[in-house]
């Protein structure tokens, strides 16, 4: 994947972060989306370890040793930041106050199932806060490379790995396309510049609906 395609994917996801939202960005690609949100957009970033209104990341020499985000990055406060305990932090999540949770994934299924915390026998560091973020945000977006390092599809008909949450993913952003998951199944919404349908079908492990109209490009 060209870094160009990655940048366009991040930018496309950032466009769905609109004024007024409270948003949680997972570690990795989701966090990178932030750099592409327009500076003037009023949004509240939530971090599981007890912050609403997360500010920009600081270099170690400017860091506050007591202020990290859930990924361990030294972040800052902005006017209006609030700190609270971990129970309140997940009260925000479970009570539906997150307008959007953006997560990474090992696998996403056409039915909205998500697997992103465990590869039996290989990787099981624990689920952290992923399960509640994936199950309870009002909208759940997955942002990931379209295929794994070996080129295998990560969008599948059914997940093969242990699930993080069942049927809660609303939208998938990849370097090749944007899909929505609806009651009628996986819907192709947009396609990346430089990708085509044939290529996309080959790289996707589940059938998807293609609209009759021209597909927006990103």
């Amino acid at each position, binding site marked *: 994947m060209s870094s160009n395609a990655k940048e366009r994917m991040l930018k496309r996801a950032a466009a769905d972060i609109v004024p*007024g939202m409270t948003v949680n960005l997972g570690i990795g690609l989701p966090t990178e989306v932030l750099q592409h949100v327009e500076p003037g957009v*009023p*949004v509240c970033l939530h971090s599981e370890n007890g912050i*609403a209104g997360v*500010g920009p990341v600081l270099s170690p020499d400017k860091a506050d040793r007591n202020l990290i985000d859930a990924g361990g990055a030294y972040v800052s406060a902005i006017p*209006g930041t609030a*700190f609270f305990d971990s129970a309140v932090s*997940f*009260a925000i999540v479970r009570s539906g106050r997150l307008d959007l949770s953006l997560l990474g994934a090992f696998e996403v299924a056409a039915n909205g199932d998500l697997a992103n915390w465990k590869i039996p026998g290989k990787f099981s560091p624990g689920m952290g806060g992923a399960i509640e973020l994936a199950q309870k945000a009002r909208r759940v977006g997955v942002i990931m490379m379209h295929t794994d390092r070996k080129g295998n599809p990560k969008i599948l008909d059914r997940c093969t790995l242990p699930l993080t949450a069942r049927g809660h993913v609303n939208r998938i952003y990849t370097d090749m396309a944007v899909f929505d998951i609806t009651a009628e199944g996986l819907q192709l919404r947009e396609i990346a510049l430089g990708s085509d349908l044939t290529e996309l079908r080959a790289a996707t492990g589940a059938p998807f609906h293609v609209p009759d109209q021209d597909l927006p490009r990103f």
Partner: protein
Amino acid sequence: MTLPDKRGTIEEAISAIGDGASVMLGGFGVPGTPFCLIRELVRQGPRNLTVIKNDANEAGMGVDWLLENGQVARLVTSHIGLNPTAIRMMNEGAIEVEFVPQGILAERIRIAGAGMMGFVTDIGLGTPIEEGKPRIAVDGRTGLLETALRADFALIHADSADSFGNLSFSASARNFNPLMAMAARKTIVEAERMVPLGALLPEHVHLSGTFIDIVVELPELPEVYGVIQR
């Protein structure tokens, strides 16, 4: 980065509350009771309300205004001993009253605000409080299932608020306010003081604005907020 602005007018805020709505009211006695929001609720007049409040205030204030105006169908509360109107209307069958032990009321509201379905406690086991509650075994002990208590609206009184809805409360005026703010579909705050974003230290915020929908600044406080002279 900047945070969303949630300031609104009291008329607009309360106009969302229609007939038959469930409404949580903060406060324990006078402290923390959102009198101005309640007064606007009386002025706009939706009826058949379910009111959830620790107590029924006293004659001539707060919940009493709603009762006297015939807007309350049901009251969920822990104690109404200081309000003769509430007791009379309960005895006459004019309102339905559900009594909940005070800490269980607080916890049913908090559990709702934390996005859970219920909790298990041994409070009330073997007393009339048990009636109608399923018994649940937890690690070999018996408890009662208490259900989450949500509402359509929460009306909250805060000491200070910023435009994002971060709140701080004064002294014993905190009580049910932060819990109810978390447990409603839509939460409306009246604040004695609006302060600029950042004026409340992040460590001193009692409730994050993530739980708040509309913040209304109070004009000069009416007398009802003052010390009761007995």
